[in-house]
């Protein structure tokens, strides 16, 4: 875990780069919706991990889907990373969280990288690239800068690209952000937990793993348009769940000797063992005050884990432990028991 001043600084640099203050809201993934669901582990899950939610008994789950952008404007149709934070509610009143996004890999390896990235990728005036320059790009067989969305006057795109051009470890994550698009539904995107965790099997064997959610309805993005729809994802999910529950498969990839365990910028090869750990069914969207609790006041932490799952030494994962708590305190989010005795 990073020291408290560093955790505060991590959150502060995010706040400092927002288009406008967000009040007592999350500085990123500000816009989100809470959903209730149930998780049922697969038959094989318990043979890989002793965590309670993998024992096969159905578990109540709270989910928060979100848009990655920081700020109070919704911009559903913008190309953006989306979040899926999940809390598995355990029998003793505690929980186990799994926080995932549509980004397959992160773009910095550690806290120092993050601060350098934040210095480079500040919001800058963002204007349409002149058509003559675009023609020059085409003649060089290059990708021209994207057009701004209506009303978009600032962006971090140029700074992020500068950072990526100087740091190869960041290129995959930043490249993916550039191409990520907008999902047709929160229930039609894959979400990756990015970090490595260690799971313990009943026989005591510990394995390095990475988790991701795969939508049973399949992955689908909307077609990009110059004037994307600002708000559709909440209504789409509400209508979808009124018709039929939406489902996700929880997949777990097992790392091998030699795989990168502590660097969330590096993907694992697709040739690793892949275990279907269970099915999450989204059942209902709370309304009114319940939605405020489920979508806003709820607080997640990627290091809040059931016995049987442990964080790796990934420096970003360790930094998130403190930074998420600082952010929760700043916005007055609900504290949540970490252990049965809340120690």
């Amino acid at each position, binding site marked *: 875990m990073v020291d408290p001043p560093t955790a505060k600084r991590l959150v502060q640099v995010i706040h400092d780069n927002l288009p406008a203050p967000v009040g007592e809201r999350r500085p990123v993934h500000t816009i989100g919706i809470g959903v209730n669901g149930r998780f049922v582990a697969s038959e094989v899950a318990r043979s890989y991990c002793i965590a309670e939610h993998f024992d096969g008994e159905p578990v109540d789950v709270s989910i928060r889907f979100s848009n990655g952008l920081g700020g109070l404007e919704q911009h559903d149709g913008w190309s953006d990373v989306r979040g899926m934070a999940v809390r598995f509610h355990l029998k003793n009143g505690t929980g186990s969280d799994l926080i995932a996004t549509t980004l397959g890999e992160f773009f910095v390896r550690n806290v120092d990288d993050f601060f350098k990235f934040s210095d480079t990728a500040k919001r800058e005036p963002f204007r*349409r690239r002149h*058509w003559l320059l*675009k*023609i020059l*790009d*085409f*003649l*060089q*067989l*290059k*990708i*021209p800068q994207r*057009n*701004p*969305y*209506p*009303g978009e006057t600032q962006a971090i795109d140029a700074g992020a*690209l500068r950072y*990526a*051009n*100087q*740091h*190869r*470890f960041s*290129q*995959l994550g*930043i*490249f993916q952000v550039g191409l990520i698009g907008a999902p047709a539904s929160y229930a039609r995107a894959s979400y990756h937990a990015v970090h490595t965790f260690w799971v313990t099997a009943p026989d005591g064997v510990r394995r390095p793993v990475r988790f991701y959610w795969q939508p049973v309805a399949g992955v689908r993005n909307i077609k990009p348009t*110059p*004037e994307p729809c600002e708000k559709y994802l909440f209504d789409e999910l509400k209508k979808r769940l009124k018709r039929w529950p939406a489902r996700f498969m929880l997949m777990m990839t*097992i790392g*091998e*000797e*030699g*795989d990168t365990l502590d660097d969330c910028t590096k*993907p694992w*090869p*697709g*040739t*690793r*063992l*892949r275990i279907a750990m269970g099915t999450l069914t989204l059942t209902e969207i709370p309304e009114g005050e319940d939605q405020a609790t489920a979508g806003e006041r709820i607080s997640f932490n990627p290091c809040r884990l059931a016995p049987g799952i442990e964080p790796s030494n990934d420096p970003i994962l360790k930094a998130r432990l403190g930074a998420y708590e600082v952010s929760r305190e700043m916005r007055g989010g609900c504290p949540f028991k970490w252990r049965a005795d809340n120690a």
Partner: protein
Amino acid sequence: MPDNEGLMDRFVDRLPETAFFKFVAARILTPLWAWWTPVKPLPGGPHPSFQHGDNVQCMMNLIMPLKDKSPVGRAHAAMAISQHKDAIFAGLNNVGTVHFARFVIVGDNICMFSVYDGDFTNYIRDFIATIGEVFDAVVGLVEGGEKVIPCDKNVEAFIQWVHERDLYQVPDTPTDFLRDQERLNGDKAVAPVNDDLTLLPRKMVLQLRANANVSLGSGYRAYPGYSVAQVRKQLGLGW
């Protein structure tokens, strides 16, 4: 309409989709950039790895241009395979590390696509040790094949011949494709560097010009990480 979008902006945004630009890109820009910034073709076959999961279910995508580029030439190739079906299947059983293998005719090429475990050179060595004669019949129909016949007497030359016709396997991520090119040029830097990520399309276009046939991504596997031996044992199929 988005703010301050003019007629020329709209026209230029649609330019890459026009037949005119596609013609210019294919016939003028690509050859020009290939001349100005030459690109070496990336080598075929799986990426070298010491890890278990990367050494099972490896892909071989062998494309062999036929000497006789006519329906008769293709029929000869089809006959060469069908006449030796028993020998091929028996040979693959004896190799023992092959998940799937099939011959396909695409255009004027006879192709062999297979999924195997272990080292590529061992796979080819075992293969020609058991069905070298069959390969002689096939390779004899292929451009440049006469140099390696009889295959079982020219083992190392044959392995190299196959490797040169095995497709480059484009990585699953675009940035790993860039790393492949950098590695080929001896560049192993991580940071600080002075790259230009916006050049990725040109790099891909020029590589596909140098390497017209490639395999895209590492492919899907329903049971990644398992060898033929493990699958057969688990299913009780024996040998």
